[in-house]
Each structure stands twice: as structure tokens, then as C-alpha cells.
């Protein structure tokens, strides 16, 4: 007698926990033959709001970790991804990818995570400055994370779309809530499991599955979200999100034309998007030995 396979329950990821959507709603994920392969949570506004609370709660701790420590944790995520390679490949195949494309996507995702792990303690040096003011002050500018970032990830891409969106945001010390691809959600949930076993404290990355046309207005009207990033190309959603962003002056980044599979979709400038520049002044005492010439 052949063994009966254990099927996985796909849930969402909020504050380091794996709850089902509070709404109890779901949508079926079907394969090419039209068979139901999984039941996916159709996240609600309330799920999003819970996720923002978790993200805000995690922000203070994550942003004040040392950059070196953040780098180690991102590297750990890459290690865990590598260990789960086969699972991601089979999920991508289940979602319609060829075996070759699936393998490529997983490897690119792992490498991209390592790429951003390395940037964690370097981008500050690229984007900082000491400013030679004309008065007797020491003055410098450094990047600091914007805060809570709400992301609507690419619809066409699964794992690589998530990694491209999340890695630069958390590398810079932000926390985030991410809506995964509606049609390719399997890797998102498995990716959450990777994060959960990577020493990444709960709440830093929160992942929802569901429908962008329902959620994009909630993402953009929430008053405790500091920044929005959108990787799709629905013009109406873009306009609505940009309009709503004005409610609390959110920083909006639209990557409707970005190919997340390209080399050009990774750079420290994506980290800089969700950074603020802080400039600090302090007087310099100009008494006594100021004329010393040696």
C-alpha cells in the first residue's frame, strides 16, 4: 500500500506567528489541469492592520541592532534558503515553472540575499557624508531607516519577487508587511518558514497572501505606514496608492517596469529608497590651541 502524503496548510505570517487569516476566507490554488493544489488565505484589512502593529513593534529593536548583526541574520536567511532549495524548486514547478527556470530562480534568490547581507554594514559608508560647513561645527549626515514599509510584491514572480522586495528594506533596518503574488503564493509561505528559522525576530517581515485590488487601498491609507513599494503595473492601483499616500506623506516607490530577474534589480540604491538622511550638528570649541600648526 502506498503511503498517503501529508499536505501542507499554507498560512500567513504575522509577528513571527503563522495564523490563518482572521477573516476565515480562502482562495483555491489550481494547477494547469485545474486541480486544487492548495488552499490559500485571502487576507483581510484586519490581517494587514495586525501586521502593521507587529512591524511597528519590531522596528525599534531591529533598527537599533548593529549593522554587522543584521548582515549576519540576512546571511543566515540565505543559508536556510539554500537548505530548502529542493522544496522551493518543487513549489515553483507546481506553480507552472520549468525545472530549469525553477532552479535558476531559487539560486538567484539565494545569491541576492547574500548580496544584501553584505550591504548591511556598507551602504551607510556609501551614502553618508561629513559636511564642511562654514561655521565652527562638526556636521555629518547618515542614513536611517524610514520605518514600516508596506510592499505589494511582483505578481508574475514568486520567490525572487519577494527576496528582491524584502531584502533591501530589512537590510536598511526597516520592518515590512508584504503582499505576495496572488497566483504564485506557495513560495511566500515557505519563505516565511525560512525567515522564522533564521534568527530574524518576529514582526520584522510579515507576509500576507491575497488580492491586491482589495488590499492596496488599505496598504496606502494606513497612518502608521511610512513607505509604500509597488512592483506591479496596474495603473489605477498605482494612482490610488499615490493619492492615499498623501494622507501622511508616505514615501512611494513604483517599480512597475523593473525586471526582478535582472542584475539591475539589485543595488544599494534600493536600500537608499527606504532611508532618511539625518544631519547632526555640534559646535567645535575654538579656544586655545586652535593655531597649532604641526
Amino acid at each position: 500500500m502506498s503511503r498517503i502524503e501529508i499536505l501542507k496548510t499554507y498560512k500567513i505570517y504575522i509577528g513571527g506567528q503563522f495564523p490563518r487569516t482572521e477573516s476565515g476566507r480562502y482562495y483555491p490554488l489550481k494547477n494547469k489541469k485545474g486541480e486544487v493544489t492548495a488552499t490559500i488565505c485571502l487576507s483581510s484589512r484586519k490581517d494587514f492592520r495586525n501586521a502593521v502593529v507587529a512591524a511597528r513593534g519590531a522596528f525599534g529593536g531591529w533598527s537599533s541592532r548593529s549593522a554587522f548583526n543584521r548582515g549576519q541574520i540576512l546571511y543566515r536567511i540565505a543559508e536556510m534558503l539554500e537548505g530548502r532549495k529542493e522544496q522551493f524548486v518543487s513549489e515553483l514547478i507546481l506553480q507552472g515553472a520549468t525545472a530549469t527556470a525553477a532552479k535558476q530562480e531559487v539560486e538567484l534568490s539565494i545569491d541576492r540575499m547574500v548580496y544584501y547581507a553584505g550591504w548591511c554594514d556598507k551602504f551607510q559608508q556609501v551614502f553618508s557624508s561629513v559636511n564642511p560647513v562654514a561655521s565652527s561645527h562638526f556636521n555629518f549626515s547618515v542614513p536611517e531607516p524610514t520605518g514600516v514599509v508596506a510592499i505589494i510584491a511582483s505578481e508574475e514572480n514568486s520567490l525572487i519577487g519577494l527576496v528582491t522586495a524584502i531584502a533591501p528594506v530589512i537590510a536598511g533596518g526597516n520592518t515590512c508587511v508584504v503582499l505576495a503574488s496572488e497566483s504564485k503564493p506557495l513560495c511566500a509561505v515557505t519563505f516565511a518558514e525560512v525567515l522564522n528559522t533564521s534568527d530574524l525576530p518576529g514582526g520584522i517581515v510579515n507576509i500576507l497572501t491575497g488580492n491586491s485590488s482589495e488590499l492596496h487601498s488599505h496598504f496606502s491609507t494606513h497612518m502608521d505606514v511610512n513607505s509604500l513599494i509597488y512592483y506591479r503595473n496596474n495603473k489605477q492601483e498605482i494612482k490610488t496608492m499615490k493619492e492615499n499616500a498623501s494622507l501622511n506623506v508616505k514615501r512611494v516607490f513604483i517599480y512597475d517596469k523593473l525586471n526582478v530577474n535582472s542584475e539591475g534589480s539589485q543595488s544599494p540604491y534600493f536600500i537608499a529608497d527606504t532611508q532618511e538622511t539625518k544631519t547632526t550638528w555640534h559646535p567645535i570649541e575654538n579656544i586655545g590651541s586652535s593655531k597649532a600648526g604641526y
Partner: protein
Amino acid sequence: MSTKKEIKLDFNSAWELDPAPEDTKHVSIKKQYDLFINGEFVKPNSKKYFATYNPATEEKISEIAEADEKDVDKAVKAARAAFGPWSKLSGKERGKYIYRIARLMQERAREFAVIETMEGGKPIRESRDIDIPLAANHFFYYAGWADKLEYAFPNKNPKPLGVAGQIIPWNFPLLMAAWKIAPALACGNTVVLKPAETTSLTALKLAELIRDSGLPKGVVNIITGAGKTGAAIVNHPDINKIAFTGSTDIGKLIQKSIAGTDKKLTLELGGKAANIIFEDAPIDQAVEGIINGIFFNQGHVCCAGSRLFVQESIADIVIQKLKDRMETLKVGDPMDKNTDIGAINSKEQLLKIQEYFKIGKNEGADFYQSSCSIPKKGYFIKPTLFLNTSQSHRIVQEEIFGPVLAIQTFRTIEEVIEKANNIPYGLSAGVWTDKGSKIFNLTTKLRAGIVWANTFNKFDPTSPFGGYKESGFGREGGLHGLSAYLDLK
């Protein structure tokens, strides 16, 4: 701890200052000003002009053209036509034009200072020593960037954006014009700039100066008017970039109204800065910092230190010293070189500040003003404190934009960080303590774009300026200020 009367300094009884007004005769102001479009002054389409007044005397100074949509369109067309040749000009040559503007401004500095004070109400001491020199230095600084842009952003190939629409406020008229125009030109853009309707004159004098500098026609267009003119700029379809400095309310409107377009946006909006005094601070210096923080430019400063947090153990002595120091402030004729606090910029702003007096009193805060006299004519307000305020008071949460300070006390660092950050704004903050590690603890935790430690209200062309949260996004000044005017894709 209570302060003994005998340690109080007496500044007033020993000497009186004679009036020392700056001479205004050498200044040339025309009776009427037209719009500066495509290198020349042209009449507005509507033929309408509005009067501009001296807020210290309530006398009319001149008449300013009101630009409508057709005028805006004309200015944008001129800027568009000029963009091609200007952006193709080598950075080296672009820079030389900007250097010329800086030099001409230095040569005409006194005239600019006098007009800035006549129309804006700020003390001549500030326009002469701060506004005008900083404006000229800003042009000088960015002139040098024009041929060095490829060094600013590693691995990028910076390109200009196109036509920039720029809308500026009335609190630092010429300086804000410089902050907008200088980096835009250095990066190869052309501009349409609108000054605030109560302070158009120094922008129009800048237009004359730009004409004299030989800058190619249409590279800088300066048009005047009120909110409708600004809206016409924001909504013009052939503008690539909007840069706005002003209130958070208008900033939000602008962000919303360009949502369906690809226009790039930077916003420098309101603020309500926390100025935090710890018990180990050098108290006399801190009191100077409080005074400078809230009474500089009549408090018409987006980064003004309008919320004072004093550690409880030194609250009595700090507040006493602050009151003593306030007694020495001279409020009155802005043209007088001894004046510390000039005129409120407009009647509208005067009424708004007075409205907040009512609000604060109704909320239960204690109202205090210095005993000075103020001129009968003109718009003046005595330096004002609100004591015993709390976080929920509107006078603590909202930007008043006047010489009004809301004071709270605190006990622990955690408490003051929480209170300082618990506000939608995040433009600036001040910290006063003798302990270095405490400074860095505070400066890293305060959610604000500029933190002044043991100083306040300092500005420099090389120093990036701009806010967190609802105080806006983007930076002006320094290397960081370039990215607002470049396509870095």
C-alpha cells in the same frame, strides 16, 4: 530649586539704545513688477496686479503681477525650450553662469537685505547676516557641482529631469529661492519658480540679477501670484519635477494632485521641533539656544524649536533665566539694527497666532509674555511662552509659526524621547547636555532630519536639510540635495 532675585541680570535700566535704522534710500523698487518669463519682464495675461505691503508699517510697497494658467503655460514653454540647450551645455560652462549669480548677489547683498526686511518683516540683522549671505553661498556651492555630478552617485549616470516647478514660502524668500534654483540649474534643469504672494520682491530682484548675469533666456522663469498660480504650476502637464516648501496641508494636496503623473516630487513641510535641555547642560548656552530656536525670524521657521522639554530638576532655573533673557529682546522696527524680533509677516499670520493664544489658554496652559512694548502700527507679537502644557494640547501638536514656545518638563531620557517623537512631524530637534554619549543616544533615537546638539537653527549650503514623516521627503543642500534634481535610473 528657586532662583534668587539677586542673581537676576538687569539689562534695561543702565542703558537705552538709540534707534539705528538701516538706510533704505539706495534701494530701487519699482512701482509695479511684471512676470519674468523667457528672460524678460512681461505683463500678466489677466492684467491683474496685487499690492504688497510692509508688515511693519502696513504701507504699500509695490504692485505685483498675478500669473494665471496662460502665464504659467508660457513660462513652462519657455523653460521647456531652454531645457535642450541648457542641459547639453557642459557642466563646466553651466557652473560659470551659476558662479556669476552668486557673485552678483554678493555685490548687491545690502539691497537684497533691505528689501527682504521691508517686505518680509524680519530684522535687518538677520537678513543682512544670514538670509542673503546664505543664499549667495548656496549658488556658489552648487555652481561647483555642475561639472562634478558623476562623482556624487557611484555607478550611476546622472541626467537632468527637465523642467522643475518650484513653489516657495514667505519666511526665507530669497534663501528658499536659492535652495530651489541653484541645485536645479547645476543638475541641468530649467525652472519655473513662484515666490509666496506676500514676499515676491526679492525673487523679482533675483530675476533682474539673473537677466543681468546673461543666463540663457528661459532657463529661470519667475512668476508671481497666490495659491491658484501655484496650483497651475503643480498641474501643468509638461513639468517633470515639483519642489515645494510650505505647510504640511498644502504639501499633502500637492502629493495627491500629482498622483496620476510621473512627476518627481520633493516636499519640505512643517515641523514642531523638540528642544531638549538635560540637567547637565550648560544652562546659559542652552537658554541662548532656546531663544534662538523659537524667536529667530519671529518663529516663522519650519524647524523652529517650538516645543521645549526641560528636565524637571532644572526647570525652575531654566524658565527663570529664559524669562530674564526674553526681557532683553527688542521687538519692533525690523529695519533697526538693534531689533531682535521684527514684524509678523502678514495680518493673516498675526491672526492665526492670536487664535492659538486663545486655544492654548482654553486648553489650560499658562500664558506668559515679556513686558516689552510693541509698535502701534504694523503686525507685532511679544515673545510668548506657554507653560504647563501637555502632549495632547493643540499648541504642542500643531505648528504655530510664530514666536510662541510650548514648555513641558520631563524626568527620564525614555520619557523625553517618547514625547519628542510622538508627533506627526519630524523635521528637526535640539539636544543640550555636556555628555557626549547621551548626545549620540538622543541624536540616533530622535526621528528628525536635522538634530542640533548644543546649538540650534544653524544652516549651511553643504548641510542636507529636510524631514522625516509628515515634515516631507527629499533633502536640500549638500551632496544629498543633488538627487532631487537628477534622474539616477
